């Protein structure tokens, strides 16, 4: 049993993170901005932007990952056909309803055609906001893709410098890289801890705590991560007879919190996932000494997560990141959960499944939407999966 004191320590952190999660008006970011007259907020969508540059400009990077299941989408739906996923609708709803009226810039990473086109829509709908399609190279050679990326980063750095009225210095960048290195290390620690003792770091809690990093200043988020990790380590919670799974496909449109909870309730401990990849996109630290943009580029090209939005030049490497994740976390299976109409996740899925099949790793697949209301089919599938894994491992 947990001691009351420890229990309240995790609960406090989670409660705070949950309040941030539920706040569709981004009050904390608004307050941050209002505290000083020259502060600016730069929004970004999944999957990755170098937040270090925004931070170095003294601005707040604000992760926008849709509206979840509590936002009523009216005007957003007016812009999209029924066969397009939910995240651009709810993002537009957030914009049209004034919930993002304090945001000074928006970044649309290169993840798929829908988000790409949204970048142009934003330019038209919110002409006073700095908005940028954030392109990244699909060529991973330093002298080719690297040079392109460094120039793109330089352009972005220049734009933000203009926006604040003062160029961003290398030292500012170096400092920000260090701050984010620390944050990434903490997120990775949390993931490692959960992989080791998933009953002490339930997936929904980990999700909320990591997600707080999308809206909080990074320093504050690092404190939150430390607090949660300390409290979670200290708190004994009952271990259930769950199987261990890796969750994949959720890198853009977010699943409802209920879905994550449902997985654990149905007998699956989540030991790794691809949620909120921006918080740990760069694997390992970014070099601080030297040219900061070059260092960011190097990390992007050679030490970044694998995901469907990236081209894999090496056929043999295709899907191996998933196999490695399963091995690293001692997972027993993989759950493919993709948003409906998500091109990257759904086109990638058959390839990943073949790799898993070859590696003898069991998997299931289903689709969701950020506003899915029904968890029953998901509970049933995840529950059956967990049972079959137990039976299978029992028989082995």
């Amino acid at each position, binding site marked *: 049993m947990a001691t009351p004191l420890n229990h309240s320590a995790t609960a406090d952190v989670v409660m705070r993170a949950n309040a941030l999660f539920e706040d569709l008006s981004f009050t904390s970011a608004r307050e941050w901005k209002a505290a000083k007259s020259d502060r600016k907020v730069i929004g970004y969508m999944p999957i990755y932007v170098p937040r270090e540059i925004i931070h170095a400009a003294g601005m707040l990077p604000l992760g926008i990952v849709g509206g979840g299941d509590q936002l009523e*989408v009216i005007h*957003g739906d007016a*812009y999209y056909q029924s066969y397009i996923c939910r995240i651009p609708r709810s993002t537009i709803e957030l914009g049209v309803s004034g919930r993002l009226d304090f945001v000074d810039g928006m970044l649309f990473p290169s993840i798929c055609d829908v988000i790409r086109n949204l970048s142009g829509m934003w330019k038209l709908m919110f002409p006073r906001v700095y908005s940028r399609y954030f392109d990244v190279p699909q060529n991973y050679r330093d002298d080719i893709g690297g040079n392109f990326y460094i120039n793109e980063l330089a352009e972005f750095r220049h734009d933000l410098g203009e926006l604040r009225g003062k160029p961003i210095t290398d030292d500012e960048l170096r400092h920000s890289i260090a701050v984010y290195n620390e944050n990434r290390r903490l997120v990775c620690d949390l993931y490692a801890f959960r992989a080791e003792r998933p009953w002490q770091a339930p997936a929904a809690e980990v999700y909320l705590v990591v997600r707080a990093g999308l809206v909080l200043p990074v320093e504050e988020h690092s404190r939150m991560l430390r607090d949660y990790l300390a409290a979670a380590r200290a708190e004994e919670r009952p271990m259930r007879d769950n199987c261990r799974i890796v969750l994949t496909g959720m890198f853009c449109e977010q699943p409802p919190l209920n879905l994550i909870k449902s997985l654990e309730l149905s007998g699956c401990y989540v030991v790794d996932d691809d949620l909120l990849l921006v918080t740990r996109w760069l694997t390992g630290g970014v070099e601080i000494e030297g040219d900061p943009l070059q260092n960011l580029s190097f990390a992007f090209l050679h030490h970044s997560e694998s995901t469907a939005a990236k081209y894999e030049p090496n056929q043999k490497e295709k899907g191996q990141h998933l196999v490695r994740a399963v091995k690293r976390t001692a997972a027993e299976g993989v759950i493919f959960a993709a948003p409906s109409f998500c091109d990257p996740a759904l086109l990638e899925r058959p390839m990943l499944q073949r790799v898993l099949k070859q590696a003898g790793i069991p998997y299931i697949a289903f689709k969701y939407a950020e506003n899915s209301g029904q968890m*029953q089919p998901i509970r049933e599938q995840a529950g059956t999966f967990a049972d079959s894994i137990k039976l299978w491992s029992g028989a082995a």
Partner: protein
Amino acid sequence: MKTFVGIDLGSTTTKAVLLDEECKVIGHGITNSRSNYATAAHVASQEAHVDGQFTLFRRALTDAHARIELDTFLGALERAFRLEQFLEQLDDLEQTCIGQIRGERFAKVESGVKDSLGEVFRRLRREAPELYAPGAKRKSDFFRDIAGSRYHTHAEEVAREANLPYDLLLNVYDKSIIEVENRPPTGKLSDKFRRALARVLTTEPSIKSAAADIQKMIDGALAVDLEETYLVGTGYGRVTLPFSKEHIRSEILCHGLGAHLMYPQTHTVLDIGGQDTKGIQIDADGIVTNFQMNDRCAAGCGRYLGYIADEMNMGLHELGPMAVKSDKPARINSTCTVFAGAELRDRLSLGEKREDILAGLHRAIILRAISIISRSGGVTNEFTFTGGVAKNEAAVRELRKVIQENYGEVTININPDSIYTGALGAAEFARRAHLGQADGSEQ
């Protein structure tokens, strides 16, 4: 006098509107669409003529300051007229049934069946006046519905009495009813009115004193030829409309113009029908400037409520009243018809209250409709809501809320005759076409 007919062929009902040269509505008519659009159009149009005839009677009697209780008289006249129509169709049905008595099946019992059929129709005729007595409730105004159930009752009795297999009588009826239904009544309308008037004059002693005056005025009104000058058809079944091309207008254009005639200040029209949802923007002349419909996916249309009703084992008309009871609507994000049942069961099993779920469903439908409106350009001025769902109080309540939340104070019009919006627009197109403006514009 010149009249202009607009016909809106819907998937379930067909509506007609009769306009005069001043663009005044003189008659409405409605009938079930059947499998035969040509008949449906004809019947609806004739119904509108009947209604128009009553308008003329009322005008004539009002102008003449007839010393009678106008509504009572016209009510009686209408019942008598419907009775005449019913009797005429019974005759038709009987003749048709007799014609069906042939073939091996009837070889030995032909005369017995004929006699029994005669008896069934005698009984039907005998009780017919009761069906049209003051205050009598008919479950439907369509001939097949009224005649069908009574025929079955009588045929069963008569067959028993005559020791004949009941299914023989059933067989001739089944073979005949569709034919009769798809054959528009043939008799002259004015004859039926005269017979009806005679019936009223004999049964309503209160107006006897004015009988001569009334007779004169009715004759005068009947003498006016409601000439069908131009007809325009529209509707869901437009592709197979039984009219030539110059007599067809798009349902969206008709709907927009119809709403404009009802509410000249309206700029935005929302129509939620069984199969689709339409958002229409019109200008100050009722000309459509933009329209949007639900895409391929029919989520959130009237049919969705039908599925919900089936799933909950309730009548469609019971959904609204139950939903209105909720003060805590559930949040329902999907109006996908395919998943409606599963979502409902899931929620019920989680202990959510029926009324809250229903209220949530109504809100979800309205949210979807308003996003179609938003797609068409939003709400800028008076807003008109039409279609079957406009009769649902829970849907209307949510619509008012959502409009208020998104567009502020806006006048929302819901016309009790909103089912005739498309037909009204079509009739006006007919009137304009006749005025030599085949393009449909006003001067």
